């Protein structure tokens, strides 16, 4: 079995990113009790769930895009990722309007750090998607197959992190 060096590199990068997110999630969990009342009162699970579905669906469109090297499915992935970020932005605006920010109390500090860092990773993923999209638009034959797989790999990771964050932060308020 031969392993592609680019994919192995991305896999190792994702492993190190996992340690990074693990530390941030652990900090959130460590302070969960202090912020639980604020979280229960202010997080809109239903609305975030809808935007989360957009992100989860984008993993499906990404898989289709990578399999067929399809610019159309890639565009759909970017649109779904952007919808997720719009949802996150509107949630931030609402919370900040209610006086909940990174400096207001422990909940705000941990919530904005964890979801914000994830959002930055989604944004980085969108940049990678856009780069792939542009390259594919210009000279599709020059884009190596591994580029599709590598970008797809990272996008699935960003998606998987949100499964954890959504469970811990949002579904956690139901416990």
């Amino acid at each position, binding site marked *: 079995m031969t*392993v592609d*060096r680019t994919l*192995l*590199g991305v896999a*190792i*990068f994702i*492993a*190190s*990113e996992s*340690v*990074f*997110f693990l*530390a*941030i999630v652990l*900090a959130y969990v*460590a*302070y969960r009790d*202090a912020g639980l009342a604020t979280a229960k009162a202010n997080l809109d699970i239903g609305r975030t769930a809808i935007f989360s579905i957009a992100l989860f669906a984008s993993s499906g469109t990404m898989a289709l895009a990578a399999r067929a090297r399809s610019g159309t499915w890639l565009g759909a992935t970017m649109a779904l990722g952007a919808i997720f970020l719009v949802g996150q932005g509107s949630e931030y605006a609402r919370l900040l309007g209610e006086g909940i*920010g*990174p*400096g207001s*109390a*422990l909940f*705000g*500090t*941990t919530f*904005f*750090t964890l979801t914000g*860092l994830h959002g930055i990773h989604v944004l980085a993923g969108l940049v990678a998607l856009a780069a792939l999209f542009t390259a594919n638009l210009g000279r599709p034959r020059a884009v190596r197959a591994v580029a599709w797989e590598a970008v797809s790999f990272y996008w699935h990771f960003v998606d998987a992190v949100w499964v954890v964050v959504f469970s811990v932060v949002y579904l956690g308020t139901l416990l």
Partner: protein
Amino acid sequence: MTAIPLWVRRPAGERVGWLRTVDHKAIGVLYIGMGVAFFAVGGLEALLLRAQLATPEAGLVDPETFNQAFTVHGVTMILLAVVPLLVGFANYMVPLMIGAPDVAFPRLNALSFWLSLVGGVVLYFSFLAGGAPDTGWFSYAPLSERAFAPGTGVDYYILGLAVNGAGTIIGAINLSVTILLMRCPGMAISRVPLFVWMTLVTSVLILGAYPALTAALVMLLVDRQLSGHFFDPAGGGQAVLWQHLFWFFGHPEVYIMVLPAMGMISEVIPVFSRKPIFGYGFVAGSSVAIAFLSFGVWAHHMFAVGLGDTENAIFSATSMLIAIPTGVKIFNWIATMIGGRLRMTTAMLFAVGFIAMFVIGGLSGVSLAVVPIDLAVTDSYYVVAHLHYVLFGGTMLGIFAGAYYWFPKMTGRLLSERLGRWHFWLTFAGFNLTFLPQHWLGAVGMPRRVFTYAASTGWGPLNLISTIGAAILAIAMVVFFVNLVRSLRSGEIAGDDPWDAFTLEWSTTSPPPPENFATIPAVTGRRPLWDRKHPEARDKS
């Protein structure tokens, strides 16, 4: 005539500048150059500290400068000197040792180096921007929070370490993929030179440890810049969380710094003993054990915090366990020398010096793993003595061994053995004179990081001895720099294989051509060059 070429050649013959090079050898040299420069700066900071402490109630520097100097000294030596030196040698040597033309991702390699360097520059920019960080290299919260460190020093610490760490993480990805996928035909993972093994294990440690530091730095940044409460007890946060995250990085970092140096002496000792390493599998396997255990010992830095007796007992036990795989290695090296035809070159002197000094540092480490002893000497000069025996007596002597061993391969010229001996013995004497008395100072209660002390404490004489030792150490480093510069210009021509060595880097020219090897070699054992030179006595493994 300049000895340092202005250009780096590419395999096609084209020449590119040092700023644009992606050649692993050139980037290795850049890393080593960065390490040497910051080692000099960090050394000058240490001399300033020792000068201030030479006599009681001295007023050479003010307390604020002293705080900045010990903080920046620690960060510099660990992250901007030792790690780049080790990564630099790995960058240069690993592809040569495994018979590869370059690393897996040459352009990413350049990015790693430049990020590491920019991180260091950002940290030092703090001096111009209103004051360097002054909270110690581990920057404990809440001291590092905005309320207690209102200047910008800690912010530059955060940014500098995060950027430098990103470079180190990317470098570790690159080196691990290189080692896993780019070995030449016949070079099974059970045949790679031990320096390569140590680099692989170190890369895994970097990938597990550095992201935890980055996470902690981000949280501190949120606290300082967005008025967050992660480590702010007044806002419900816990200062101890910083300590957990920092030492989850900080203790593996110790092994990140010492394992590659162990790899270096594992190359040097067999070659100068004319024997294969004793127990190759144990040297490699014990490193994996060390790496595994090193993620489970971080709270031994926190015995005095008050985590509780159960936690302290567990971390005390895991810390002592690490002494076992470490001890295994000591026996491997000694057994390699026993019955060998020893050639006491400068490289070998430093390698043997490593073993002796590292044993002292290791034993004081075991003593610190005993909770009651740690409680008595925590935050004292005993700890300072211990860590310098490990990091200078261990790592730096290992790096010097590697430097004397590989300098001829990298430059085509040998370092002077005569100056090398002066360098070794002055280092050995100066080092022990500096740090051995600090064990006593710590035992009688001198706290670390104090700016001065009263004459009535009686700590004056031992401090004076320590400072004299530091001055001798400084002279030793000057001798080394003179040796580097003179040998670079007019050292004896080395040839391809001056040490009659065992591994593939010595089978190519000195310095190697841009593509490393004219043809990709094929190997059948752990000592491919030995096999080629002595087909009748070929290794069986």
